[in-house]
């Protein structure tokens, strides 16, 4: 009972970050609409690449759309988690948020909750726009498998994001830059818009350590070929294992980085 009350309390505290970030979206709604329109247009332009002049090539379109939608979701997730510290620093609120009597797990839980909700909302809007325009046939897709892939890949991306979030704690400006480079590297090697087999050998080796590679492979199998959970079990196990390892590791690294920032005086607005 005490544990339930404690978890409830921590969830309420986590919600502080969700509410705060959605309030900020409301405040800058005009920009949010602009970004949304840009994302929809960007996804459409990628999807049109797959379409032949005679109107065939629906499979290619779906292949690209799955890549664009998944990358859209995962990159928002990664970006929101990885940039959480840097964002607080820019706003000047980092000291207030970090001196609140709140477990860091609760704080980061709130960041991840918002990132997942925000990413999901954006992805659903883009998906409806793209499916409507291309009249995509999803009758053979296994949506349950697709959803499970999305959930498990969220765990591993949260883990990677947590580790990337520590970078701005250690170096105010360079840390954020490094997080963007990491994101770009994942985009390059994971086969978002092409099969990883087209990559040079050394990049193919790198693709093996990117959780996005397994996410995209499993999601395409589920949505394009209707693969069952059993069919994609090896990818699901890899994603689960990556999440189970990376989230606690990310929290541990974050705590260490916070102590480093507290020792060196970097836990402050100007860095």
């Amino acid at each position: 009972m005490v544990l339930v009350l404690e978890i409830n309390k921590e969830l309420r505290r986590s919600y502080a970050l969700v509410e705060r970030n959605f309030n900020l979206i409301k405040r800058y709604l005009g920009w949010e609409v602009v970004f949304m329109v840009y994302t929809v247009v960007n996804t459409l332009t990628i999807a049109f690449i797959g379409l032949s002049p005679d109107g065939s090539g629906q499979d290619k379109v779906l292949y690209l759309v799955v890549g664009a939608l998944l990358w859209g979701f995962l990159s928002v997730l990664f970006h929101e988690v990885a940039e959480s510290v840097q964002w607080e620093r820019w706003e000047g609120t980092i000291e207030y948020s970090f001196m609140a009597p709140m477990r860091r797990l609760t704080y980061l839980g709130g960041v991840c909750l918002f990132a997942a909700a925000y990413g999901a909302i954006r992805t659903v809007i883009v998906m409806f726009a793209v499916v409507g325009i291309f009249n995509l046939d999803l009758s053979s897709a296994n949506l349950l498998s697709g959803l499970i892939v999305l959930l498990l890949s969220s765990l591993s991306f949260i883990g990677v994001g947590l580790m990337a979030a520590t970078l701005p704690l250690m170096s105010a400006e360079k840390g954020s830059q490094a997080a963007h480079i990491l994101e770009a590297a994942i985009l390059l090697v994971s086969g978002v818009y092409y099969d990883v087999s087209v990559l040079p050998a050394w990049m193919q080796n790198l693709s093996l350590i990117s959780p996005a590679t397994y996410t995209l492979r499993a999601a395409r199998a589920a949505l394009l070929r209707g693969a069952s959970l059993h069919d994609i079990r090896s990818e699901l196990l890899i994603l689960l294992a990556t999440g189970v390892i990376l989230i606690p590791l990310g929290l541990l690294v974050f705590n260490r980085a916070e102590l480093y920032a507290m020792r060196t005086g970097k836990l402050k607005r100007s860095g």
Partner: protein
Amino acid sequence: MSSALECHNARKVFYVKRERKNGSILSRLFARLIPKYKMVEAVDRLTFHVEPGEIFGILGPNGSGKSTLIRLISTLLLPDEGCITVFGHDVVKERFQVRKLINRVSVDAAFFKGLSAMENLSYTARLYDLDKGAWQDTAADILERLGLKTDKLHEPLEDLSRGMQQKIAVARALLTRPLLLLLDEPTTGLDPVSKKEVQDFVLEERALRGTTVVLTTHDMQEADRLCDRIAIIDYGRFVAMDTPGGLKSQVSPNGEDVTLEEVFFALTGKRLKDNGKPENGDVR
């Protein structure tokens, strides 16, 4: 009863990059032999205590170590040496407990400036898990006492004046009912009316709730008006610590009427301008 704040031999050192000036090849080569970083004693083995309900002032120019000391007490910095406790809780080993007892107002009203005052206060209330009905009543009471108009509370903070933002920062800190309130130059840059309103509020809060206050400032009148005791800090060290009257009598044994400004000059050899910079420019 234990002290509200005890600081024993607290020390904090930072390593800052040396400035390297352009010069001849020889001087640049020579510069490479000197270590890239130099050590700065931001807080140099400070020992003091603050009693519950006391308003303790720390007076010093910019760069003297005031804010570093506040950040050490706020659990945002780890001391290199020494020990700091807040109501008996160690700021390093019992950070979580200390954080429940303190809050802070800093020189810059650090908010999500795109959000309104109420949205920012709601964020604080959720972080501290305050009861929804109770925090709204408390906030309304504090904001009214600070003289803030309710119609401004739903406007983005970036549209409000600096004085109003700072008052909301005070309201945010007091919303959590801290036992120890850390005020880090809370009235710097405020107009005289807003400055007096914030000072009045601090005195009222202490009278009503017995809140202990640590106030850093370079405003001599403010220190004289608010503080029970004042420590003068320079280069991370306290050069004097006494009641305002005691400090004055230290430099005027004959009982002549002196101001804190004169006390400060006599003890540090520096005069402060309005922005906290010593007139001789001797700031680290």
